[in-house]
């Protein structure tokens, strides 16, 4: 058996272990009531990339693999008992747990896993799947027996195992999919720890313990511990914070802001526990390279150099969900560079005075000493508004005048798509922290439409493709560094700052594990409620 190897896994796992309440003995019973800050519109895991779908349906489904939150980001089996990868990295053979059943009592076999994965990678007409591109390397999926699954790749892909562990990989019943491929869009029927009870759109989702769940804890106790759960939808953060303070909900699992944390500490600090982690989502500056002067690399570099990211990390963390300085990959994540390693790249020099002098010189060389432009941003307060305000102040330091244009998200996305902006504050959501699954944003615009800069860089594309196939972790890391250097130096899109996650939970809630992704740990299979004192 070959597990995914990540160089920084051990160190990170130790840091994250604070989330687990390992010393308490789990007890059965109780209903977890929690707040859901968004709704997806679909109940299909592959139908949308928003976290809301996972927060809504994760407790009802199993996945083939999953991320082990005690050893983040190591991959562990969920439906898979074990697996092997062939020496050439092309064949993945999985042994599936026996005796697994869906909530309707039908057996779950490798055929169901195949049908689900096939649906994600080759969605039938009328079924949207945002995961299609990430499974393009899969050549075939075979099922030699009900408990054997063999996935064959077209080419080696070291990101595939983590990709298969993604939370958006719910396993559906092959029978249901055959009857109606759109079944999971509006119905829930899985094999996860909880059975679906009801979903009232805009209001709540409820689940009850599935007694036939195939997993037991390390002491042999049948999971899940909870009798059930109820996720209550909140459309306004203040209402959710009030409900947390008033004890109407036991937590929320995306994030709260520093101001909300302070309020909760002051008003309900004795009842709540706060879990914190770096977050695998980051802000990215996109320069419209189709528009002068942003087609000039010197201008882009100058504007990046003017930003004091290190002060931003300290200052913005007081009022927003931003904190960590890093490159294209989250610092602390596998293949993530420490800020010190980036100091020679534009925008990462800790000596901001010197950096700004150089920025002014570059603007002079480019002939745009009196530069004025518009920062295109979302009207979402967190974390976009404070970031925009901070960036404008930074650019003013080198004599650049910037106006702030904030629009609603649909208009923002339209502006990025049509290139109707000067400089935009974009974001990167790295749910599955593997360079192949997240760095695509920095590929040429013709290869990845999430790159709003319109920039084409064949050299960077070649480096990405090389790391995509490199199975030696050390060689791969070197390629990732080269890619990162190339992208940040060209500066068409450049990282600004990474987000920081804070989860407030009732002290009664145990067994939930914090991680850098708000999509992990949401099946509540091992969550339990301590007796109220």
């Amino acid at each position, binding site marked *: 058996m070959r597990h995914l190897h990540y160089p920084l896994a051990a160190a990170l796992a130790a840091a994250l272990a604070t989330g687990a309440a390992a010393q308490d003995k789990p007890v059965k019973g109780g209903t977890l009531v929690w707040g859901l800050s968004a709704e997806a519109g679909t109940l299909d895991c592959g139908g949308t990339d928003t976290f809301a779908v996972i927060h809504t349906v994760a407790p009802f489904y199993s996945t083939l693999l999953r991320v082990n939150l005690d050893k983040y980001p190591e991959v562990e089996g969920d439906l898979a008992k074990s697996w092997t990868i062939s020496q050439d990295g092309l064949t993945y053979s999985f042994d599936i747990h026996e005796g697994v059943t869906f909530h309707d009592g039908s057996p779950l076999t490798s055929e169901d896993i195949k049908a689900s994965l096939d649906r994600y990678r080759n969605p039938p007409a009328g079924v949207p799947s945002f995961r299609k*591109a990430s499974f393009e390397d899969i050549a075939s999926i075979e099922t030699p027996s009900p408990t054997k699954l063999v996935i064959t790749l077209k080419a080696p892909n070291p990101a595939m195992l983590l990709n298969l562990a993604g939370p958006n990989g719910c396993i559906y019943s092959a029978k249901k999919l055959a009857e109606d491929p759109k079944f999971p869009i509006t119905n829930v029927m899985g094999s996860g720890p909880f059975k679906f009870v009801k979903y009232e759109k*805009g209001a709540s989702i409820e689940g009850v313990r599935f007694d036939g769940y195939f997993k037991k804890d390390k002491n042999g106790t049948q999971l899940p511990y909870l009798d059930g759960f109820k996720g209550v939808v909140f459309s306004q953060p203040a209402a*959710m914070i009030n409900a947390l303070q008033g004890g109407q909900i036991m937590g929320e699992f995306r994030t709260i802001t520093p101001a909300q944390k302070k309020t909760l500490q002051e008003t309900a600090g004795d009842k709540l526990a706060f879990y914190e982690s770096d977050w695998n989502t980051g802000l990215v500056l996109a320069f419209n390279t189709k528009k002068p002067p942003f087609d000039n690399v010197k201008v882009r570099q100058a504007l990046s150099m003017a930003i004091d990211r290190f002060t931003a990390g300290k200052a913005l963390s007081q009022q927003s969900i931003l904190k960590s300085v890093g490159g294209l990959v989250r610092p602390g994540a596998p293949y993530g560079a420490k800020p010190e390693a980036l100091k020679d790249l534009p925008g990462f020099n800790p000596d901001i005075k010197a950096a700004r002098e150089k920025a002014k010189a570059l603007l002079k060389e480019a002939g745009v000493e009196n530069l004025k432009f518009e920062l295109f941003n979302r009207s979402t307060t967190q974390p976009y508004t404070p970031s925009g305000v901070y960036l404008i102040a930074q650019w003013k330091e080198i004599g650049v005048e910037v106006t702030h244009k904030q629009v609603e998200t649909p208009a923002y996305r339209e502006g990025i798509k049509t290139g109707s902006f000067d400089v935009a504050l974009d974001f990167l959501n790295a749910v599955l922290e593997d360079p192949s699954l997240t760095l695509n944003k920095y590929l040429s615009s013709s290869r990845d439409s999430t790159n709003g800069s319109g920039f084409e860089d064949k050299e960077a594309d070649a480096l990405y493709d090389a790391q995509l196939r490199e199975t030696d972790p050390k060689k791969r890391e070197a390629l990732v560094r080269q890619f990162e250097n190339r992208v940040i130096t060209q500066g068409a899109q450049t990282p600004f700052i990474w987000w920081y996650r804070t989860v407030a939970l009732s002290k009664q809630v145990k067994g939930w594990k914090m991680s850098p992704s708000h999509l992990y740990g949401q099946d509540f299979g091992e969550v339990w409620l301590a007796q109220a004192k």
Partner: protein
Amino acid sequence: MARYILKRLLYMIPTLFGVAALIFLMLRVVPGDIVELKLRGDGAAVSEEVIQAERERLGLNRPLYEQFADWMVGVATFDLGKSMWTETPVVDEIASRFGLTIQVAIMATIIAVLLALPLGIISALYKDSWLDQFIRLFTIGGLAMPSFWVGMIIILTLLNVFNWLPPITYTPIWVDPLANISQLIWPALAVGYRYSAVLTRMVRSQIIEVMLEDYIRTARAKGVFERLVIGRHALRNALLPAITVLGLEFAFLIGGLVVTEQVFNLNGIGRLFVQAVTKNDFTLVQGIVMLIAVIFITTNLIVDILYAYLDPRIRYGGK
């Protein structure tokens, strides 16, 4: 009268078609794409092929005139289509929220009327007294403070003073009347306060005006009891403009309680409307606008009928 009502009902048809056409065209000029939001909302790497397939499926790639024709046929056949975001019929999306919204609107209207009638009458009868000044202050407060702000004050008071909050999920009144009322009375109070302020001022000014009319002087000269003068002669006439305001405000409450619904975490039509707009869910926005239009037109019709009832001199469509 029956002929008049029938005529008004027939007038509704071109009005609603006009609204349907207008909202269709207005939505198409709003920037944004529901497919982008759905598939790339959190920045996923989705190929253009997948995006286009979804646009095709939702009919967004079809020529505008075809989409328009579909929509108009749908309106004519009472088929508002499916929400592009949730794939659920628009009628179901609206129906699941309508009960809550209409109940808040009715409760707020009752609160407004119960407050406005006595306060407006007292304020008019004791014009310029300390009582009048106090009521005017009360109403100015209601006009000056947005309902959502009053709602926030109510929530924070309940939480910080009484350590209690209203239920966070809706229970229909026939399932658990206590849970239902204890959740909805607070937004109804927040909204009803502003609503009552508008009405109180209207009732006050109308009564002051009516009390100066000749027929009031005549009634008093005939020795009619003051209570009858006010109740039968003054109030009945003073209520006519108030009823117009009542009708307009009630119709507004169906789609206009956006922020109040968010403050109290109510899953109502206003919240649904905002969500649909922010997601560019054309079909759902169109459906909600049609509902609001129907409610406005129907409310206006009811107001006109009430006019005729309250003022026998008003006769529609007759000779």
